[in-house]
């Protein structure tokens, strides 16, 4: 079992990935999705992973989220190696430490907004109330709606509420605005920003939209399975100031 959340100081590292690579064996050919990536994530920071399709950003996110293991290298989460964890340990890791937001929301259609969140809070250790999480994303008035009764932006905000209700150590967002128009996308980004600031949740956001990088503390550029550059954003913008 991985250790439970303990406050870390800002100088400590929440994640530390060393020389991770991932090779997919596709029968005749081998696809190198990651080729020796080194990465550190610090508590409370908002990191944007930027790169074209096939650059390896989703693979990296999946490895950080405990959905996949690297072919080689180490992924330390609070000094424990996710690369060596068993399936059972990874499930527990996702259950208690990670919040996911997906491009296509992935809400459970048979559960209402409140229940989608409750599905997660009921199995977490120290969750907030579903109503509280939904209020945080501005959906306190949509508690008993089913996904089919909500717009895409609203659905994505429920997904964010669902991800953060367990008070995760890290929030991983895979193209959260990819299926949305820009106005709606910005509302969703505002929700992510608020969670990051008010709860201090370390947030990793994948996008291929360079404009979104404006709200990050750090921007990590990936291409061809390698980190091509890491830049500290000195001119950090509010989400509502973004446009594309």
């Amino acid at each position: 079992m991985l250790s439970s959340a303990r406050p870390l100081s800002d100088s400590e590292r929440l994640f530390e990935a060393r020389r991770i690579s991932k090779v997919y064996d596709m029968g005749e050919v081998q696809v190198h999705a990651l080729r020796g990536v080194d990465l550190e994530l610090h508590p409370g920071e908002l990191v944007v992973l930027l790169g074209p399709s096939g650059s390896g950003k989703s693979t990296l996110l999946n490895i950080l989220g405990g959905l996949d293991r690297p072919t080689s290298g180490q992924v330390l989460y609070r000094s424990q190696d996710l690369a060596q964890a068993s399936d059972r340990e990874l499930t527990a890791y996702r259950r208690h430490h990670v919040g996911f937001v997906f491009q296509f929301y992935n809400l459970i259609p048979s559960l209402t907004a409140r229940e989608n969140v409750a599905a997660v809070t009921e199995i977490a250790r120290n969750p907030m109330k579903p109503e509280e999480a939904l209020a945080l994303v501005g959906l306190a008035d949509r508690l008993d709606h089913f996904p089919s009764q909500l717009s895409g932006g609203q659905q994505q905000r429920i997904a964010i509420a669902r991800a953060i209700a367990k008070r995760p150590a890290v929030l991983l967002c895979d193209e959260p605005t990819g299926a949305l128009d820009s106005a709606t996308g910005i509302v969703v980004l505002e929700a992510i920003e608020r969670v990051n600031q008010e709860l201090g949740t370390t947030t990793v956001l994948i996008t291929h939209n360079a404009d979104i990088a404006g709200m990050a503390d750090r921007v990590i550029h990936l291409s061809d399975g390698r980190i091509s550059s890491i830049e500290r954003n000195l001119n950090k913008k509010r989400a509502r100031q973004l446009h594309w």
Partner: protein
Amino acid sequence: MRALDRKLVRDLWGIKGQVLAIGLVIAGGVATFIMSVSVLDSLKITQAVFYRDYRFAEVFASLKRAPESLKTRIQAIPGVRYVETRVFAPVLLEIPGYPDPVSGQICSLPDDGEPVLNRVYLRQGRLIEPYRVDEALVSEAFAEAHRLKPGDQIGATIRGKKRRLRIVGVALSPEFIYQLQPGAVIPDFESYGILWMGRTALAAAFEMEGAFNTVALSLTADAREAEVIDRLDEILERYGGLGAHGRKDQISHRYLSEEMRQLQRMATMFPIIFVGVASFLLNVVVGRLMAIEREQVAILKAFGYTNGAILTHYLKLVLVIVLVGVAGGVAAGVWLGQGLGRIYMDFYRFPFLIYRLRPGAVVAAVLVTAAAAFLGTLYSILRAASLAPAQAMQPAAPARYRTSFLERLGLGRTLAPPTKMILRSLSRRPVKALLTMIGVAFACAILIVGRFFSDATDYIVDIQFKLAKKEDLNVTFIEPTSERVLYSLRSLEGVRHAEPYRWVPVRLRYQHRSYRTAIRGVPEESTLYRLLDQDLRPVAIPEHGFLLTDYLADLLGVRPGDTLRVEVLEGRRQTLEAPVVGLVREWVGVTVYARLGSLNRMLGEGRAVSGAYLDTDPPYQQAVYDQLNRMPRVAGVSVREKGLRNFYETLAKQMLTFAFFNTLLASSIAFGVVYNSARIAFSERNRDLATLRVLGFTRGEIAYILLGEMALLVLAAIPAGFVIGRLLCAQMIAGLQTDLFRIPLVIEPSSYSFAATVVLVSGVVSGLVIKGKLDRLDLVAVLKTKE
């Protein structure tokens, strides 16, 4: 191969598990159909050929004794074609090395050549040489039971005189295809045999020289059977005629006809269930396939394929599944049919079985199954095909859910989200959930039907043979005898108790209805032969009047209090009248009961008895039997235990085969329904389930959501299956209730629990298969797709 056909092959391969599961259900239905229809046809053809070639008579009569000269008068009845007079004699047999009592009937064959009616088929050896007194033919079933062959000798006691008979041949006859000892329920080939001897020799031994006691007739094409029977009865009345009857009341023919009726019922009922279930499964599977293929259909249409071409494409897919099932079903049906045919040949003694599978039956199986399959799938295919391409290329609207009925009742607050998911998924498509449940319920019901016949048989045996009839030996006399014979019976060493009975053939009349049966006179204090009322409590025999088997009362339309007219068919043939006092419950045969003394008085005779029941000390049973064998008046002795054991042995063999086959079929339905439903639910919801896995749900937790729904349906299906099973059993026996036997609707608790167990095991097995798929769920892939 055209591109679209390649797609067909690959699509089928992609759902091969489901194709197999549905194919199995179709195969089950087709196999049952082909099996019963082919055996039915085979029996009919074999029967027709055997009847025709061996000249089975059309009208039969037995009587006490008539001079051979009467034959010309019978021949003169308008409509009579051939007349065969015969002597039938009861016999006690002694088989070397076989200690138990064996009785039988010897039939006469003409001394000069073959009989004109009811010829014998010689399986082995030769016919009797003219005027040989010590030669006999034995029936095949009896010969097999005792391993008798030509050249063997057996002892035979006819009218108390013992002689040795040499077996010269083994034979079969259309008259004894079903070979049953009078009064018995099931054939017992060890204890009862049919033999044939030359007429002169048999008549001499049975004191029937120049006379006959049985006659068989065949009719001309334009004859009226009922009129011939009436005329024959008139002629035979003076000679102790017991009432003539047509083929339909000939015992062997009648049992064979009843068996065919049962087969006919099996040939329709089971296939309907299977085909119905298969149609539902195809509906579910193809419905899902069309949802997945929505965009592909749109693309095909965008390329210019017509709606017709698309419809044909998917119907071809359905047809392939149907043909897979039908092919398997026909092969299994032929195999099972031949097996069942062989089992029938153990009971129904034909010289040969002409196995016949009509091509029409196979065509009918294909047409009916294909029609049901198309009916089940046409709607979803048409709907997909008729969608405008642009619309079809859009993803389908998201599934709409609402709170389930139970939650609206206020139960919702206590339920965890996974349980709510189960309830809402069920209430979103209640019809589908209901049909799934009914499908599984039918599997459960079929299992109950499969066990029902042995339950009912056990019950009959328990009641009739253990509660009602408690004798060890039943001794019958050649003619009514003075009650004094009891003293000699009671004095035999080893006889603990002997109870007389009187048995008189009669014709009962009430209003316009009549029925031929016998009155059984029983002593007041009978302990060996107890009568039970409809609640199975012992009934006392009234001093005056009759007790009737309840079924007989229904046949005649009489109720307690009504007066019954009775024409006695022996002795002075008087007509009596007496009230019906009460009803008794019996499952085998129908009888009228009277107190022995009062019956003697009604008949105006002294204290006469027709037979006796004996209670014996087991170690002395053989000795008692040996002594009985030497008593000249004894016509037959039968042992109860023996009859029961043989009955169970033959039945067990038949039941085991049937039960195994039945369990297999029912499991295929249960598995087919549960597996397909779970497989579809998996396909529809793997994205939800994978999402939950990503969010930290364990494998067990997501399996609960998917399999919990199936478990709920299976658990609901079991009690429903019990009810349907009982209804099916009632349906099976409706119309099979005859005066020969009634089948009680008795289903043992063990059968219910067996059915429930098989259904649960099938459910668990299909659950495990789906659980395997859940465990291999690709978590990463679902995050990137929009279904």
